């Protein structure tokens, strides 16, 4: 290839050329590629269970979350009514305890699994994925345990 044709091919970049026919630039690679060596690691039915869980928990969450928002923010005086006494009053009933417990577990697991999907999508390096997921799982377990503890050991007479 003569200098002439390559200059008509690409125009301005020709002047700054570090590369030529014998010394081509690297191809513009896709982030991650499938090859014949891509491991065929079937992890049982975990992905299927996770997929199903997202849909089932989503359906239940519609009821739980919308109900929760209505009670907390809309009905009976709106958000201004919320205080220690209001929370204490609701958690006096096992029904609302179970409601909140279920919402805590489902929303946390649903959200955590959703973020796991996002991390799998966007974190390119295996190490980054490992760390982000470690952080995610730690935060999830911590929040679920702390929330559960509070719901079960809540003491309305605390000073």
């Amino acid at each position, binding site marked *: *290839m003569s200098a002439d*044709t*390559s200059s*008509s*091919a*690409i*125009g301005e*970049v*020709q002047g*700054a*050329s*570090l*590369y*030529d*026919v014998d010394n*081509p*630039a*690297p*191809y*513009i*690679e*896709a*982030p*991650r*590629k*499938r*090859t*014949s060596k*891509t491991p*065929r*690691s*079937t*992890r049982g*039915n*975990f*992905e*299927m269970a*996770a*997929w*199903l869980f997202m849909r089932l928990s989503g359906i239940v969450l519609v009821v739980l979350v919308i109900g929760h928002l209505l009670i907390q923010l809309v009905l009976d005086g709106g958000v201004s009514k919320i205080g220690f006494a209001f929370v204490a009053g609701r958690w006096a009933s096992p029904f609302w305890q179970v409601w909140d417990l279920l919402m805590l577990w489902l929303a946390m697991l649903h959200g955590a699994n959703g973020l796991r*999907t996002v991390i*799998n*999508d*966007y974190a390119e390096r295996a190490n980054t994925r490992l760390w982000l997921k470690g952080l995610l799982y730690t935060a999830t377990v911590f929040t679920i345990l702390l929330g559960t503890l509070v719901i079960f050991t809540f003491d309305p007479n605390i000073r």
Partner: protein
Amino acid sequence: MATPTLEKVEAESAASPYITVTFRIRRFNPEVSDTAEWQDFQIEIDPKERVLDGLHKIKWDLDGTLTFRRSCAHGICGSDAMRINGKNRLACKTLIKDINPEKPITIEAIKGLTVMKDLVVDMEPFFQAYRDVMPFLVTKGNEPTRERRQSPEDRERFDDTTKCILCAACTSSCPVFWNDGQYFGPAAIVNAHRFIFDSRDEAGEQRLEILNDKDGVWRCRTTFNCTDACPRGIEVTKAIQEVKRALITRRF
């Protein structure tokens, strides 16, 4: 009446049908630079011609170094999928008049695959995923002496997914595939569907198990990009959901 009169047709053909269109093409030549950049070409073209004709005009008359794949030029071989005005299409099936020739028409390589030069990408990972789903008839027992017969209803069951031409428009329009090329991608699932739902095939279970993989159908997020992109009009997303349903219901 909408029927064109003879005078009208003559008047139209007397005026030149050609218009000036700008093709804005994302060029990459590793022998010159390590970055890709946009380059504009002005061409005279009949709006009833196709984007592929425009690329030919550029390659033959303006710049012979423009590199792209095409073979049949009639929407059958699946060589010339590219990203035209941000959507994956076949250059040979996209008419200029259908994509607003007033503005520059952007053309770039399909996304998520390694760009080798201009519009040419490395299709190997795409075909690897295709091979991984075993896209061939698997049967047990003796070879029949006659053809393997099938009722019209059984044939109809997978008719849609037999139309695939492996152009990669769907797979390279999928955001999950862009981010993580490990995902099998819509095209591989379409071609697995073609055999999973074929009454003559006996490896359906095996193929379902392959797609139950962590990079299999469960990564699909139902964005419908694949169905939008498919130049054959295959209901790609539906096929993927049918595989998911088969996986969930097969044992119950």
